[in-house]
Protein backbone atom coordinates (compact mmCIF):
# COMPACT_ATOMS: atom_id res chain seq x y z
CA UNK A 1 0.00 0.00 0.00
CA UNK A 2 1.40 3.37 -1.03
CA UNK A 3 2.39 5.80 1.71
CA UNK A 4 -0.04 8.37 0.43
CA UNK A 5 -3.75 7.84 -0.04
CA UNK A 6 -4.04 10.33 -2.87
CA UNK A 7 -1.31 11.61 -5.12
CA UNK A 8 -1.91 14.25 -7.73
CA UNK A 9 1.06 14.67 -10.05
CA UNK A 10 1.47 17.65 -12.34
CA UNK A 11 -2.16 17.86 -13.38
CA UNK A 12 -3.28 20.41 -15.93
CA UNK A 13 -6.91 20.86 -16.88
CA UNK A 14 -9.39 23.36 -18.10
CA UNK A 15 -12.74 24.03 -19.71
CA UNK A 16 -13.26 24.24 -23.43
CA UNK A 17 -9.68 25.10 -24.23
CA UNK A 18 -9.25 27.60 -21.42
CA UNK A 19 -6.78 26.34 -18.83
CA UNK A 20 -7.70 26.39 -15.15
CA UNK A 21 -4.94 24.25 -13.67
CA UNK A 22 -1.25 24.39 -14.54
CA UNK A 23 0.78 21.43 -13.37
CA UNK A 24 -0.65 21.04 -9.87
CA UNK A 25 0.79 18.43 -7.55
CA UNK A 26 -0.30 17.48 -4.08
CA UNK A 27 -0.61 14.51 -1.81
CA UNK A 28 -2.87 13.40 0.97
CA UNK A 29 -1.74 10.79 3.47
CA UNK A 30 -4.11 8.20 4.93
CA UNK A 31 -6.14 9.53 7.83
CA UNK A 32 -5.27 13.16 7.16
CA UNK A 33 -7.50 16.15 6.68
CA UNK A 34 -6.03 18.32 3.97
CA UNK A 35 -7.45 21.62 2.80
CA UNK A 36 -7.21 23.37 -0.56
CA UNK A 37 -7.66 27.09 -0.17
CA UNK A 38 -7.60 29.99 -2.53
CA UNK A 39 -9.69 32.75 -3.99
CA UNK A 40 -12.58 32.32 -6.37
CA UNK A 41 -11.43 31.01 -9.71
CA UNK A 42 -8.14 29.74 -8.34
CA UNK A 43 -8.85 26.28 -9.68
CA UNK A 44 -9.69 24.50 -6.44
CA UNK A 45 -13.02 23.12 -7.65
CA UNK A 46 -11.47 22.20 -10.96
CA UNK A 47 -8.90 20.06 -9.21
CA UNK A 48 -11.53 18.36 -7.10
CA UNK A 49 -13.60 17.65 -10.20
CA UNK A 50 -10.60 16.02 -11.83
CA UNK A 51 -10.09 13.77 -8.84
CA UNK A 52 -13.78 12.90 -8.62
CA UNK A 53 -13.98 12.06 -12.31
CA UNK A 54 -16.23 14.92 -13.36
CA UNK A 55 -13.52 16.46 -15.51
CA UNK A 56 -10.82 14.82 -17.55
CA UNK A 57 -7.34 16.25 -16.90
CA UNK A 58 -5.37 17.34 -19.93
CA UNK A 59 -2.16 15.94 -18.52
CA UNK A 60 -0.69 14.60 -15.33
CA UNK A 61 -1.64 11.68 -13.13
CA UNK A 62 -3.98 11.10 -10.25
CA UNK A 63 -3.52 8.00 -8.11
CA UNK A 64 -5.58 6.75 -5.22
CA UNK A 65 -3.99 4.10 -3.03
CA UNK A 66 -1.44 3.57 -5.74
CA UNK A 67 -3.96 2.97 -8.53
CA UNK A 68 -4.41 5.52 -11.30
CA UNK A 69 -7.86 7.11 -11.36
CA UNK A 70 -7.14 10.15 -13.49
CA UNK A 71 -9.50 10.24 -16.45
CA UNK A 72 -11.87 7.64 -15.03
CA UNK A 73 -15.52 8.69 -15.26
CA UNK A 74 -17.17 9.67 -12.01
CA UNK A 75 -19.31 6.58 -11.68
CA UNK A 76 -16.21 4.44 -11.65
CA UNK A 77 -14.16 6.64 -9.38
CA UNK A 78 -16.63 6.25 -6.55
CA UNK A 79 -16.25 2.50 -6.76
CA UNK A 80 -12.57 2.81 -5.94
CA UNK A 81 -13.41 4.31 -2.56
CA UNK A 82 -13.42 8.03 -3.32
CA UNK A 83 -16.67 9.87 -2.66
CA UNK A 84 -17.38 13.49 -3.46
CA UNK A 85 -19.72 16.05 -1.92
CA UNK A 86 -20.07 18.46 -4.83
CA UNK A 87 -20.28 22.21 -4.76
CA UNK A 88 -23.82 23.30 -4.07
CA UNK A 89 -24.56 19.89 -2.64
CA UNK A 90 -26.58 18.68 -5.64
CA UNK A 91 -29.08 16.71 -3.67
CA UNK A 92 -31.98 14.94 -5.33
CA UNK A 93 -34.50 17.45 -4.15
CA UNK A 94 -37.55 15.51 -5.21
CA UNK A 95 -36.48 12.42 -3.32
CA UNK A 96 -36.78 12.09 0.43
CA UNK A 97 -33.87 12.25 2.84
CA UNK A 98 -33.93 8.49 3.17
CA UNK A 99 -34.09 7.97 -0.58
CA UNK A 100 -31.14 10.32 -1.10
CA UNK A 101 -29.13 8.24 1.32
CA UNK A 102 -30.21 5.03 -0.36
CA UNK A 103 -29.06 6.34 -3.73
CA UNK A 104 -25.72 7.03 -2.08
CA UNK A 105 -25.46 3.33 -1.33
CA UNK A 106 -25.91 2.38 -4.98
CA UNK A 107 -22.46 0.83 -5.18
CA UNK A 108 -22.85 -1.14 -1.98
CA UNK A 109 -24.48 -4.51 -1.59
CA UNK A 110 -26.45 -3.41 1.41
CA UNK A 111 -27.51 -0.23 3.11
CA UNK A 112 -25.76 -1.06 6.35
CA UNK A 113 -24.12 2.35 6.42
CA UNK A 114 -27.53 3.92 6.87
CA UNK A 115 -27.59 3.42 10.63
CA UNK A 116 -24.08 4.81 11.05
CA UNK A 117 -24.88 7.86 8.99
CA UNK A 118 -28.11 8.53 10.86
CA UNK A 119 -26.24 8.13 14.13
CA UNK A 120 -23.73 10.70 12.96
CA UNK A 121 -26.46 13.12 11.86
CA UNK A 122 -29.41 12.62 14.22
CA UNK A 123 -31.10 15.57 12.57
CA UNK A 124 -31.53 13.53 9.42
CA UNK A 125 -33.19 10.73 11.27
CA UNK A 126 -35.86 13.16 12.39
CA UNK A 127 -36.48 14.25 8.81
CA UNK A 128 -36.10 10.88 7.16
CA UNK A 129 -39.26 10.98 5.08
CA UNK A 130 -39.15 14.65 4.21
CA UNK A 131 -38.28 15.73 0.71
CA UNK A 132 -34.70 16.90 0.46
CA UNK A 133 -35.85 20.13 -1.09
CA UNK A 134 -37.60 21.15 2.12
CA UNK A 135 -34.50 21.06 4.30
CA UNK A 136 -32.55 24.11 5.38
CA UNK A 137 -29.10 24.83 3.96
CA UNK A 138 -27.24 23.32 6.84
CA UNK A 139 -29.42 20.23 6.92
CA UNK A 140 -28.93 19.79 3.18
CA UNK A 141 -25.18 19.94 3.61
CA UNK A 142 -25.34 17.27 6.28
CA UNK A 143 -27.48 15.14 4.02
CA UNK A 144 -25.03 15.60 1.17
CA UNK A 145 -22.17 14.47 3.38
CA UNK A 146 -24.23 11.58 4.72
CA UNK A 147 -25.13 10.56 1.18
CA UNK A 148 -21.47 10.46 0.22
CA UNK A 149 -20.64 8.39 3.28
CA UNK A 150 -23.16 5.74 2.26
CA UNK A 151 -20.68 4.37 -0.24
CA UNK A 152 -18.24 3.70 2.64
CA UNK A 153 -15.46 5.77 1.09
CA UNK A 154 -11.90 5.82 2.30
CA UNK A 155 -11.37 9.29 0.86
CA UNK A 156 -14.00 11.98 1.11
CA UNK A 157 -13.82 15.04 -1.14
CA UNK A 158 -15.77 18.15 -0.18
CA UNK A 159 -16.24 21.18 -2.41
CA UNK A 160 -16.99 24.33 -0.42
CA UNK A 161 -18.98 22.73 2.41
CA UNK A 162 -19.51 26.04 4.17
CA UNK A 163 -20.86 27.96 1.19
CA UNK A 164 -24.13 29.66 1.97
CA UNK A 165 -24.42 28.25 5.46
CA UNK A 166 -24.73 30.11 8.75
CA UNK A 167 -21.49 30.22 10.80
CA UNK A 168 -22.98 28.33 13.71
CA UNK A 169 -23.95 25.46 11.46
CA UNK A 170 -20.59 25.59 9.70
CA UNK A 171 -18.93 24.92 13.04
CA UNK A 172 -21.17 21.90 13.58
CA UNK A 173 -20.42 20.57 10.12
CA UNK A 174 -16.71 20.84 10.77
CA UNK A 175 -17.15 18.97 14.05
CA UNK A 176 -18.88 16.24 12.08
CA UNK A 177 -16.01 16.18 9.60
CA UNK A 178 -13.56 15.74 12.45
CA UNK A 179 -15.64 12.85 13.77
CA UNK A 180 -15.76 11.26 10.34
CA UNK A 181 -12.00 11.64 10.05
CA UNK A 182 -11.46 10.04 13.44
CA UNK A 183 -13.27 6.98 12.13
CA UNK A 184 -10.61 6.57 9.51
CA UNK A 185 -11.89 8.48 6.51
CA UNK A 186 -9.27 10.61 4.80
CA UNK A 187 -10.59 14.06 3.91
CA UNK A 188 -9.67 16.54 1.20
CA UNK A 189 -11.67 19.69 1.31
CA UNK A 190 -11.85 22.80 -0.81
CA UNK A 191 -12.75 25.96 1.02
CA UNK A 192 -12.96 29.68 0.58
CA UNK A 193 -13.47 30.05 4.31
CA UNK A 194 -9.78 29.82 5.15
CA UNK A 195 -10.13 30.17 8.90
CA UNK A 196 -12.54 27.26 9.23
CA UNK A 197 -10.47 25.14 6.87
CA UNK A 198 -7.17 25.76 8.68
CA UNK A 199 -8.79 25.18 12.05
CA UNK A 200 -9.86 21.72 10.96
CA UNK A 201 -7.14 20.57 8.56
CA UNK A 202 -3.69 19.36 9.46
CA UNK A 203 -2.14 20.50 6.22
CA UNK A 204 -3.17 22.76 3.41
CA UNK A 205 -2.27 23.89 -0.09
CA UNK A 206 -2.86 27.38 -1.36
CA UNK A 207 -3.91 27.71 -4.99
CA UNK A 208 -3.72 30.84 -7.04
CA UNK A 209 -4.64 31.05 -10.74
CA UNK A 210 -4.26 27.33 -11.18
CA UNK A 211 -0.95 26.84 -9.41
CA UNK A 212 0.13 25.77 -5.94
CA UNK A 213 1.77 28.85 -4.45
CA UNK A 214 2.18 27.65 -0.91
CA UNK A 215 1.81 24.52 1.15
CA UNK A 216 2.43 23.45 4.69
CA UNK A 217 0.87 22.61 8.01
CA UNK A 218 -2.11 24.62 9.15
CA UNK A 219 -0.01 26.35 11.77
CA UNK A 220 2.65 27.30 9.24
CA UNK A 221 0.09 28.75 6.85
CA UNK A 222 -1.67 30.73 9.53
CA UNK A 223 1.66 32.43 10.15
CA UNK A 224 2.47 33.04 6.50
CA UNK A 225 2.25 36.54 5.07
CA UNK A 226 0.51 35.39 1.94
CA UNK A 227 -2.34 33.75 3.73
CA UNK A 228 -2.68 36.48 6.30
CA UNK A 229 -2.77 39.26 3.74
CA UNK A 230 -4.82 37.57 1.04
CA UNK A 231 -7.37 35.71 3.06
CA UNK A 232 -7.37 36.79 6.65
CA UNK A 233 -7.20 40.47 5.97
CA UNK A 234 -4.38 40.97 8.37
Amino acid at each position, binding site marked *: MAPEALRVSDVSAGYGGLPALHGVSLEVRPGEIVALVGANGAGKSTLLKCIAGLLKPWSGAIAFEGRGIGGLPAHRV*VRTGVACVPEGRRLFLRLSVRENLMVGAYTQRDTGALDEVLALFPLLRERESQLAGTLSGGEQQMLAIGRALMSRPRLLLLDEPSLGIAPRIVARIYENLAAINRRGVTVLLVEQNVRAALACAARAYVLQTGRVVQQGTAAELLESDLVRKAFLGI
Partner: protein
Amino acid sequence: MNPLAQALVSGLLTGLVYALIAAGLSLIFGVMEIVNFAHGEFLMLSMYLSFFLNASLGWDPLAALPLNAALLFVLGVVVYYALIRRVLRAPMLAQIFATFGLGVFLQAAAQFLWKPDFRTVGATVVSGTRIAMGGVFVSGPQLVAAGGAVATTLALWWLLARTGTGRALLATAEDRTAAALMGINANHMFALAWGLGAACVGIAGGLLSTFYYVFPQVGSQFALIAFVAVALGGFGSVVGAFAGGILIGVVESLAGVFVAPAVKNLFVFGIYLVVVLVRPRGLVGKQ
Protein backbone atom coordinates in the same frame (compact mmCIF):
# COMPACT_ATOMS: atom_id res chain seq x y z
CA MET B 1 -78.66 2.38 -21.11
CA ASN B 2 -77.32 5.65 -19.88
CA PRO B 3 -75.28 7.29 -22.64
CA LEU B 4 -73.34 9.49 -20.23
CA ALA B 5 -72.33 6.60 -18.03
CA GLN B 6 -71.52 4.51 -21.08
CA ALA B 7 -69.38 7.25 -22.55
CA LEU B 8 -67.59 7.78 -19.24
CA VAL B 9 -66.83 4.12 -18.70
CA SER B 10 -65.78 3.57 -22.27
CA GLY B 11 -63.60 6.67 -22.12
CA LEU B 12 -62.04 5.57 -18.87
CA LEU B 13 -61.12 2.18 -20.26
CA THR B 14 -59.60 3.65 -23.41
CA GLY B 15 -57.97 6.34 -21.31
CA LEU B 16 -56.18 3.76 -19.20
CA VAL B 17 -54.50 2.36 -22.29
CA TYR B 18 -53.58 5.89 -23.41
CA ALA B 19 -52.20 6.39 -19.92
CA LEU B 20 -49.87 3.42 -20.25
CA ILE B 21 -48.57 4.65 -23.60
CA ALA B 22 -48.11 8.14 -22.18
CA ALA B 23 -46.33 6.80 -19.10
CA GLY B 24 -43.70 5.14 -21.27
CA LEU B 25 -43.16 8.34 -23.24
CA SER B 26 -42.94 10.39 -20.08
CA LEU B 27 -40.39 8.07 -18.52
CA ILE B 28 -38.01 8.49 -21.42
CA PHE B 29 -38.44 12.23 -21.41
CA GLY B 30 -38.13 12.46 -17.66
CA VAL B 31 -34.81 10.66 -17.57
CA MET B 32 -33.11 12.35 -20.48
CA GLU B 33 -35.21 15.20 -21.84
CA ILE B 34 -35.61 13.67 -25.25
CA VAL B 35 -39.03 13.22 -26.82
CA ASN B 36 -39.42 9.91 -28.60
CA PHE B 37 -41.21 10.92 -31.78
CA ALA B 38 -41.17 7.27 -32.81
CA HIS B 39 -43.19 6.17 -29.78
CA GLY B 40 -46.26 5.53 -31.90
CA GLU B 41 -44.27 3.35 -34.25
CA PHE B 42 -43.07 1.24 -31.31
CA LEU B 43 -46.75 0.69 -30.53
CA MET B 44 -47.47 -0.21 -34.12
CA LEU B 45 -44.62 -2.71 -34.24
CA SER B 46 -45.86 -4.36 -31.08
CA MET B 47 -49.33 -4.65 -32.54
CA TYR B 48 -47.97 -6.23 -35.70
CA LEU B 49 -45.95 -8.62 -33.53
CA SER B 50 -49.13 -9.75 -31.82
CA PHE B 51 -50.85 -10.05 -35.16
CA PHE B 52 -48.16 -12.17 -36.75
CA LEU B 53 -47.77 -14.40 -33.70
CA ASN B 54 -51.48 -14.95 -33.80
CA ALA B 55 -51.77 -15.42 -37.54
CA SER B 56 -48.85 -17.82 -37.95
CA LEU B 57 -48.62 -19.58 -34.59
CA GLY B 58 -52.11 -19.15 -33.28
CA TRP B 59 -50.88 -17.43 -30.12
CA ASP B 60 -53.31 -15.44 -28.02
CA PRO B 61 -51.97 -11.87 -27.80
CA LEU B 62 -52.67 -11.82 -24.10
CA ALA B 63 -50.53 -14.88 -23.55
CA ALA B 64 -47.82 -13.39 -25.75
CA LEU B 65 -47.67 -10.12 -23.78
CA PRO B 66 -44.42 -11.00 -22.03
CA LEU B 67 -42.87 -11.47 -25.45
CA ASN B 68 -44.13 -8.08 -26.58
CA ALA B 69 -42.65 -6.51 -23.49
CA ALA B 70 -39.32 -8.30 -23.86
CA LEU B 71 -38.86 -7.66 -27.56
CA LEU B 72 -39.87 -4.04 -27.34
CA PHE B 73 -37.54 -3.61 -24.36
CA VAL B 74 -34.72 -4.86 -26.54
CA LEU B 75 -35.82 -2.56 -29.36
CA GLY B 76 -35.76 0.41 -26.99
CA VAL B 77 -32.26 -0.40 -25.78
CA VAL B 78 -31.01 -0.97 -29.33
CA VAL B 79 -32.51 2.32 -30.51
CA TYR B 80 -30.79 4.06 -27.62
CA TYR B 81 -27.35 2.69 -28.32
CA ALA B 82 -27.57 2.83 -32.12
CA LEU B 83 -29.22 6.19 -32.52
CA ILE B 84 -30.02 8.26 -29.47
CA ARG B 85 -26.64 7.98 -27.84
CA ARG B 86 -25.08 9.69 -30.84
CA VAL B 87 -27.31 12.73 -30.58
CA LEU B 88 -27.14 13.23 -26.82
CA ARG B 89 -24.85 16.20 -27.19
CA ALA B 90 -26.11 17.29 -30.59
CA PRO B 91 -28.24 20.38 -31.17
CA MET B 92 -31.93 20.02 -30.47
CA LEU B 93 -32.74 19.94 -34.15
CA ALA B 94 -30.71 16.77 -34.47
CA GLN B 95 -32.38 15.20 -31.44
CA ILE B 96 -35.85 15.89 -32.75
CA PHE B 97 -34.99 14.63 -36.18
CA ALA B 98 -33.30 11.48 -34.96
CA THR B 99 -36.47 10.05 -33.42
CA PHE B 100 -38.72 11.75 -35.90
CA GLY B 101 -36.81 10.19 -38.78
CA LEU B 102 -36.95 6.83 -37.06
CA GLY B 103 -40.71 7.12 -36.79
CA VAL B 104 -41.12 8.05 -40.44
CA PHE B 105 -38.81 5.23 -41.43
CA LEU B 106 -40.58 2.57 -39.33
CA GLN B 107 -44.05 3.58 -40.44
CA ALA B 108 -43.10 3.66 -44.09
CA ALA B 109 -41.26 0.36 -43.83
CA ALA B 110 -44.31 -1.22 -42.25
CA GLN B 111 -46.49 0.15 -45.02
CA PHE B 112 -44.11 -1.11 -47.66
CA LEU B 113 -43.62 -4.55 -46.15
CA TRP B 114 -47.07 -5.31 -44.85
CA LYS B 115 -49.29 -3.13 -47.03
CA PRO B 116 -51.74 -0.59 -45.69
CA ASP B 117 -54.43 -3.22 -45.10
CA PHE B 118 -56.24 -3.22 -41.83
CA ARG B 119 -55.63 -6.43 -39.96
CA THR B 120 -57.48 -7.91 -37.08
CA VAL B 121 -56.24 -10.45 -34.65
CA GLY B 122 -58.20 -13.67 -34.58
CA ALA B 123 -60.11 -14.94 -31.61
CA THR B 124 -58.51 -14.42 -28.24
CA VAL B 125 -59.61 -15.81 -24.95
CA VAL B 126 -61.83 -12.84 -24.31
CA SER B 127 -63.03 -11.85 -27.76
CA GLY B 128 -66.66 -11.45 -28.23
CA THR B 129 -67.41 -11.23 -24.55
CA ARG B 130 -69.46 -8.40 -23.21
CA ILE B 131 -70.15 -7.56 -19.65
CA ALA B 132 -73.08 -5.57 -18.42
CA MET B 133 -72.46 -3.61 -15.28
CA GLY B 134 -75.21 -1.39 -13.98
CA GLY B 135 -76.65 -0.42 -17.32
CA VAL B 136 -73.32 -0.03 -19.01
CA PHE B 137 -71.91 -2.44 -21.58
CA VAL B 138 -68.23 -3.14 -21.64
CA SER B 139 -66.45 -5.39 -24.08
CA GLY B 140 -64.26 -8.07 -22.59
CA PRO B 141 -61.13 -7.21 -24.54
CA GLN B 142 -61.40 -3.55 -23.61
CA LEU B 143 -61.82 -4.38 -19.95
CA VAL B 144 -58.87 -6.73 -20.00
CA ALA B 145 -56.80 -4.13 -21.83
CA ALA B 146 -57.61 -1.52 -19.23
CA GLY B 147 -56.80 -3.97 -16.47
CA GLY B 148 -53.51 -4.84 -18.12
CA ALA B 149 -52.68 -1.16 -18.45
CA VAL B 150 -53.35 -0.56 -14.79
CA ALA B 151 -51.29 -3.57 -13.77
CA THR B 152 -48.36 -2.53 -15.92
CA THR B 153 -48.42 1.03 -14.68
CA LEU B 154 -48.51 -0.19 -11.09
CA ALA B 155 -45.53 -2.41 -11.81
CA LEU B 156 -43.71 0.56 -13.32
CA TRP B 157 -44.54 2.71 -10.32
CA TRP B 158 -43.32 0.02 -7.96
CA LEU B 159 -40.08 -0.25 -9.90
CA LEU B 160 -39.47 3.48 -9.75
CA ALA B 161 -40.52 4.07 -6.18
CA ARG B 162 -39.42 0.98 -4.38
CA THR B 163 -36.30 -0.42 -5.97
CA GLY B 164 -32.69 0.73 -6.05
CA THR B 165 -32.69 0.72 -9.83
CA GLY B 166 -35.82 2.81 -9.93
CA ARG B 167 -34.29 5.29 -7.52
CA ALA B 168 -31.21 5.42 -9.68
CA LEU B 169 -33.42 6.25 -12.68
CA LEU B 170 -35.13 9.05 -10.80
CA ALA B 171 -31.78 10.33 -9.54
CA THR B 172 -30.40 10.36 -13.10
CA ALA B 173 -33.52 12.16 -14.26
CA GLU B 174 -33.02 14.90 -11.76
CA ASP B 175 -29.25 15.36 -11.86
CA ARG B 176 -27.17 12.99 -13.89
CA THR B 177 -23.90 14.45 -12.62
CA ALA B 178 -24.79 13.95 -8.98
CA ALA B 179 -26.04 10.49 -9.88
CA ALA B 180 -22.69 9.72 -11.45
CA LEU B 181 -21.03 10.68 -8.17
CA MET B 182 -23.12 7.96 -6.57
CA GLY B 183 -21.76 5.39 -8.96
CA ILE B 184 -24.69 5.46 -11.39
CA ASN B 185 -23.71 5.04 -15.02
CA ALA B 186 -25.90 7.52 -16.86
CA ASN B 187 -25.64 5.63 -20.14
CA HIS B 188 -27.01 2.48 -18.56
CA MET B 189 -29.86 4.46 -17.05
CA PHE B 190 -30.70 6.05 -20.37
CA ALA B 191 -30.75 2.69 -22.09
CA LEU B 192 -32.90 1.32 -19.30
CA ALA B 193 -35.33 4.20 -19.65
CA TRP B 194 -35.65 3.55 -23.36
CA GLY B 195 -36.12 -0.14 -22.74
CA LEU B 196 -38.77 0.37 -20.10
CA GLY B 197 -40.57 3.06 -22.08
CA ALA B 198 -40.65 0.81 -25.12
CA ALA B 199 -41.74 -2.18 -23.03
CA CYS B 200 -44.67 -0.18 -21.68
CA VAL B 201 -45.80 0.73 -25.14
CA GLY B 202 -45.15 -2.85 -26.20
CA ILE B 203 -47.59 -4.16 -23.63
CA ALA B 204 -50.09 -1.50 -24.62
CA GLY B 205 -49.78 -2.64 -28.22
CA GLY B 206 -50.34 -6.25 -27.33
CA LEU B 207 -53.42 -5.30 -25.34
CA LEU B 208 -54.78 -3.06 -28.07
CA SER B 209 -54.36 -5.69 -30.73
CA THR B 210 -57.10 -7.73 -29.11
CA PHE B 211 -59.75 -5.26 -30.22
CA TYR B 212 -58.20 -2.60 -32.42
CA TYR B 213 -57.30 -2.70 -36.09
CA VAL B 214 -53.64 -3.15 -36.90
CA PHE B 215 -52.28 -1.01 -39.74
CA PRO B 216 -49.14 1.03 -40.39
CA GLN B 217 -50.56 4.39 -39.34
CA VAL B 218 -52.15 3.16 -36.13
CA GLY B 219 -49.16 4.36 -34.17
CA SER B 220 -49.49 7.98 -35.23
CA GLN B 221 -52.99 8.31 -33.88
CA PHE B 222 -52.04 7.00 -30.47
CA ALA B 223 -48.73 8.81 -30.39
CA LEU B 224 -50.37 12.16 -30.90
CA ILE B 225 -52.73 11.42 -28.07
CA ALA B 226 -49.82 10.28 -25.94
CA PHE B 227 -47.98 13.54 -26.60
CA VAL B 228 -51.02 15.50 -25.62
CA ALA B 229 -51.46 13.39 -22.49
CA VAL B 230 -47.86 13.89 -21.49
CA ALA B 231 -48.02 17.61 -22.19
CA LEU B 232 -51.23 17.76 -20.19
CA GLY B 233 -49.89 15.90 -17.23
CA GLY B 234 -46.48 17.43 -17.43
CA PHE B 235 -43.36 16.26 -19.16
CA GLY B 236 -41.24 14.25 -16.80
CA SER B 237 -44.04 13.11 -14.54
CA VAL B 238 -45.16 9.54 -15.06
CA VAL B 239 -48.08 10.07 -12.71
CA GLY B 240 -49.08 13.22 -14.55
CA ALA B 241 -48.91 11.48 -17.90
CA PHE B 242 -51.07 8.70 -16.53
CA ALA B 243 -53.68 11.16 -15.33
CA GLY B 244 -53.47 12.99 -18.62
CA GLY B 245 -54.15 9.80 -20.52
CA ILE B 246 -57.27 9.05 -18.57
CA LEU B 247 -58.51 12.60 -18.96
CA ILE B 248 -58.00 12.48 -22.70
CA GLY B 249 -59.79 9.17 -22.97
CA VAL B 250 -62.81 10.50 -21.16
CA VAL B 251 -62.93 13.79 -23.06
CA GLU B 252 -62.53 12.04 -26.36
CA SER B 253 -65.32 9.62 -25.54
CA LEU B 254 -67.69 12.31 -24.34
CA ALA B 255 -66.99 14.48 -27.36
CA GLY B 256 -67.47 11.54 -29.69
CA VAL B 257 -70.83 10.67 -28.20
CA PHE B 258 -72.27 14.08 -27.49
CA VAL B 259 -70.85 16.16 -30.33
CA ALA B 260 -69.73 14.14 -33.32
CA PRO B 261 -67.20 11.32 -33.76
CA ALA B 262 -65.47 13.07 -36.63
CA VAL B 263 -64.41 16.01 -34.51
CA LYS B 264 -63.63 14.35 -31.21
CA ASN B 265 -59.93 14.89 -31.79
CA LEU B 266 -60.58 18.59 -32.10
CA PHE B 267 -61.62 18.55 -28.46
CA VAL B 268 -58.55 16.59 -27.49
CA PHE B 269 -56.23 19.01 -29.22
CA GLY B 270 -58.30 21.91 -28.02
CA ILE B 271 -57.72 20.89 -24.44
CA TYR B 272 -54.05 20.51 -25.21
CA LEU B 273 -53.85 24.05 -26.52
CA VAL B 274 -55.71 25.40 -23.53
CA VAL B 275 -53.27 23.70 -21.18
CA VAL B 276 -50.36 25.02 -23.22
CA LEU B 277 -51.74 28.51 -22.90
CA VAL B 278 -52.56 28.38 -19.24
CA ARG B 279 -49.92 26.14 -17.75
CA PRO B 280 -47.11 25.31 -20.16
CA ARG B 281 -45.43 22.86 -17.89
CA GLY B 282 -48.55 20.76 -17.51
CA LEU B 283 -50.54 19.88 -14.46
CA VAL B 284 -47.75 18.15 -12.56
CA GLY B 285 -44.75 18.64 -14.74
CA LYS B 286 -41.19 19.68 -14.05
CA GLN B 287 -39.66 22.62 -15.87
